[in-house]
């Protein structure tokens, strides 16, 4: 059973259903690997009792042939997502002891598929960061190289798959937080179209940009997970009423007729040479699979990062107003006045990057500055979206680009320079501004054996084409089969 962690979700499904192993054995295997990989610091909270109890229930259901897509399969959840009766910390000292009294809709959906949740993964505090170093519970290490960051903010959710602790996880993506860690850890993950997956019960960072998505070891697993997560939620007014297709259905189709756009603004000087060539090779591979490659232009790309760093902090400053120390979360002691209670509770509870963004967001919304910053950013956001609309309307079906300009960087190398850190997300941020789906799929390694990801961006609601493309690419290369399991 030592290789259970190398099986795909599909293989796990078959093995469980054929009673080759039980959910209990699988879950124990996962818990044992989690225990022996603590140096990664990828989990904030592991819940063995809950997981084993769920595994028992799953085994009973399997025995009764009452099987759903994820029955008995261990999964881990980014600790930004609320899980009833289990601590949900958002990697913040503020919520160190917060026990959610309700489940996020995505959790309800996974439980409805009888998944086994083994724990909550580490992240940048409130999902604000690109390296997982902004966690109150310490940074996560990249399983490929422990001196490197795993990416962020869903760093824990990426690392646990790369290290073979679980086969699939949930992440969230506001400016690249699923795709960038996937790229750094050689796994695959998708940010669905904004509105495809419910945000209810997902601690909000930037409400108009946030989206939950799955992360997994391969594209087919990703499609299985996505099937479980999508759908209109009456509790989220921004989730959209659209029929959820079977995302596994088109996998295996060829790429004839597919037009792949290469935006010149995404292949610029300053990108690590190996990243650039790996992505260019990947695009050639798509061409050899039947796709045609077309050069496209997204001229407002350079404005995306500053736009994001106005809109996201503005929404964050508002969303984080509820963390006031009164009804839940950190409450400063010894405060005589209400104002002291607010300021002290928040100041003690939030880390430096969260404070930075709250300050920036407060400023850009404040009286006299709203038009110059927030309103302006919303207009530029439309320019960014219009760029995509234009090329998708006439030039191409998917866009290919690097996920990040570089491979995983050294721990502690960028924390003191926020702008350098922000620029990491230069290729992922425009996608959130435009509300589009995008995924990351492994496409190579640099000379230091650090993973590189291919970024595929799709039309709104067209995750199917993205998955089809990524699947064809993955099946025709060896990158996804490489692992760093110990």
């Amino acid at each position: 059973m030592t290789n259970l962690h190398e099986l795909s979700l599909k293989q796990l499904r078959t093995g469980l259903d054929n009673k080759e192993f039980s959910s209990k054995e699988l879950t124990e295997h996962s818990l044992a690997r989690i225990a022996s990989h603590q140096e990664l610091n990828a989990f904030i909270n592991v819940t063995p009792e809950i997981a084993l109890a769920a595994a028992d229930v799953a085994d009973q259901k399997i025995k009764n042939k009452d099987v759903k897509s994820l029955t008995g399969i261990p999964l881990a959840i980014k600790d930004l997502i609320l899980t009833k009766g289990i601590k949900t910390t958002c990697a913040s000292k503020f919520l160190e002891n917060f026990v959610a009294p309700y489940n996020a809709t995505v959790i309800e959906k996974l439980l409805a598929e009888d998944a086994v949740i083994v724990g909550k993964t580490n992240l940048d505090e409130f999902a604000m960061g690109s390296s997982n170093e902004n966690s109150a519970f310490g940074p996560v290490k990249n399983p490929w190289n422990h001196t490197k960051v795993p990416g962020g903010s869903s760093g824990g959710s990426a690392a646990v798959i790369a290290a073979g602790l679980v086969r699939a996880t949930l992440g969230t993506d506001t400016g690249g937080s699923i795709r960038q860690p996937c790229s750094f850890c050689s796994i695959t993950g998708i940010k669905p179209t904004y509105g495809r997956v419910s945000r209810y019960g997902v601690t909000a960072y930037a409400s108009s940009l946030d989206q939950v998505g799955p992360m997994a070891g391969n594209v087919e697993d990703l499609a299985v997970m996505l099937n479980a997560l999508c759908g209109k939620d009456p509790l989220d007014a921004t989730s959209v009423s659209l029929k959820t297709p079977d995302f596994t259905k088109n996998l295996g189709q060829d790429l004839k007729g597919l037009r792949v756009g290469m935006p010149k603004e995404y292949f610029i000087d300053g990108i690590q040479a190996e990243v650039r060539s790996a992505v260019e090779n990947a695009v050639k591979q798509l061409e050899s699979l039947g796709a045609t490659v077309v050069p496209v232009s997204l001229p407002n790309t350079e404005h995306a990062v500053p736009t994001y760093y106005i809109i996201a902090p503005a929404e964050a400053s508002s969303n984080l107003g509820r963390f006031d120390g009164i009804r839940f979360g950190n409450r400063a002691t010894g405060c005589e006045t209400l104002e002291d209670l607010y300021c002290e509770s928040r100041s003690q509870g939030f880390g430096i990057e969260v404070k930075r963004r709250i300050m920036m967001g407060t400023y850009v919304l404040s009286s006299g500055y709203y038009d110059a910053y927030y309103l302006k950013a919303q207009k530029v956001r439309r320019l960014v979206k219009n760029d995509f609309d234009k090329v998708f309307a006439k030039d191409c079906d998917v866009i290919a680009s690097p996920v990040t300009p570089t491979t995983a960087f050294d721990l502690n190398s960028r924390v003191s320079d926020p702008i350098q850190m922000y620029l990491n997300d230069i290729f992922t941020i425009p996608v959130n501004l435009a509300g589009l789906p995008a995924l990351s799929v492994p496409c190579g390694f640099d000379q230091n054996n650090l993973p590189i990801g291919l970024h595929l961006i799709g039309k709104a609601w067209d995750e199917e084409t993205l998955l089809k493309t990524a699947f064809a690419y993955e099946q025709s290369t060896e990158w996804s089969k490489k692992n760093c399991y110990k």
Partner: protein
Amino acid sequence: MFIEDYEIVVGLEVHAQLATQSKIFSGASATFGGNPNSHVDSVTMGLPGCLPVPNKKVIESAIKLGLALNCQIRNYNRFARKHYFYPDLPKGYQISQFEEPICEHGHLNITVDDMVRNIGITRIHMEEDAGKNIHDSRTNASLVDLNRAGVPLLEIVSEPDLRSPEEASVYLRGIRQIIRFLGIGDGNMEEGSLRCDANISLRPRGSLKFGTRTEIKNINSFKFVEKAIFYEATRQLKILKEGGVIIQETRLFDSATETTRSMRGKEGAADYRYFPDPDLPPLHIEESWIQEIRSKLPILPHQKKVELVESYGLTDYDASLITSERENLEFYEEVYSACKNAKLACNWMTSELFGFLNKNGKHLKDSPVSAKNLGQLIKLIDQGILSGRMAKDVFEEMFETSKTPEAIIEEKGLKQVSDPKEIINIIQKVISECPDQVRDYLAGKEQVFGFLVGQVMKNSGGKANPKLANEALKSELQKLME
């Protein structure tokens, strides 16, 4: 109204709670009261991850009120977040509407001293109520109850068109009356389901420029609207006459002393940082939706009042009384439909019934006499089955027992004698028993007639139909003359 050389200028901001089952953005109960923090859910508590979803009934109520107040309904309107920190505001922001409110540019006509004045309504917007803080200086703590947080509110903002405390009060009553007629809220100031802030300034008579205003908060009963405005105007006048300047500020009305006092610090720090709420897609109010709501609007008090005066022949005073409350009108209409006598229906309702209710400390909604039964009673009078006097006795019995008038008449054998034969028998008996009086009458002493009628009524045990008795007696005596 002028005080000395100054004119009072008032604008009101009225907050009306809506009578919905659930809250404006979630399924928690919107019912008044309850144990502290029992009408709550994740949205009310402002827990991480929770999201607002608007209540359709709130949108419909806003459109109804907008139409009733002659507003334009904005096709495109949306919610915005208003930020400030306060313990009764769980999310750190209130979901409200800012630049794009649902209703704009309306008006309400009010009548004060027989003068009709058109009061502009700047806007009506939807927003969520805050919770309640109870202050306990004994333990040096405040206690927070979030049951009220998220209860739907409509905020109705008037133009600075009101010119006296009395006008303000009449305007406020007019808003309340319409809210109640529409059935969208109960407008109860004592329970806080209707609240009012007043913006007050003075300007020299004849001046077109507004003076510096103050905003008075916490006016929590109708009684205090006029008092608060009057006090504040007087206070401002004193400052102006002494050559001072009015400071633009928020002031609190203290109902114990009937004065206002400054809420220091409130202004300088406030920066609400409004922005469109990303959790809530905008609303597009289609014309067809507006038309559908318009077609179902109940007839409004001012329209009904005109109808009562012009078609029913009621006095202006009576029509006002009946349309002052939706329940009054509904009751009246039911009485009327049972008896088809508009004036009698009005008289019996406003004098007998209201009198009895008053005496017994009851509200119309608890009236032991149902509208249908009262209408039935009036019908019996109209048909001559009961005399006015008898009807009063029957009514008293109805008030005590809630029985139908027919049942009471049956029990007590109270039916009026209207059979001409029976009446003539009684008359003949009276003529034969009172020969002296009959002779006097025949000799021209007409005042004796009343005595003879009385005898007829007495002999019938009070049951003879007085009108019939009158006529029959006259004709019998006439016969004797011939």
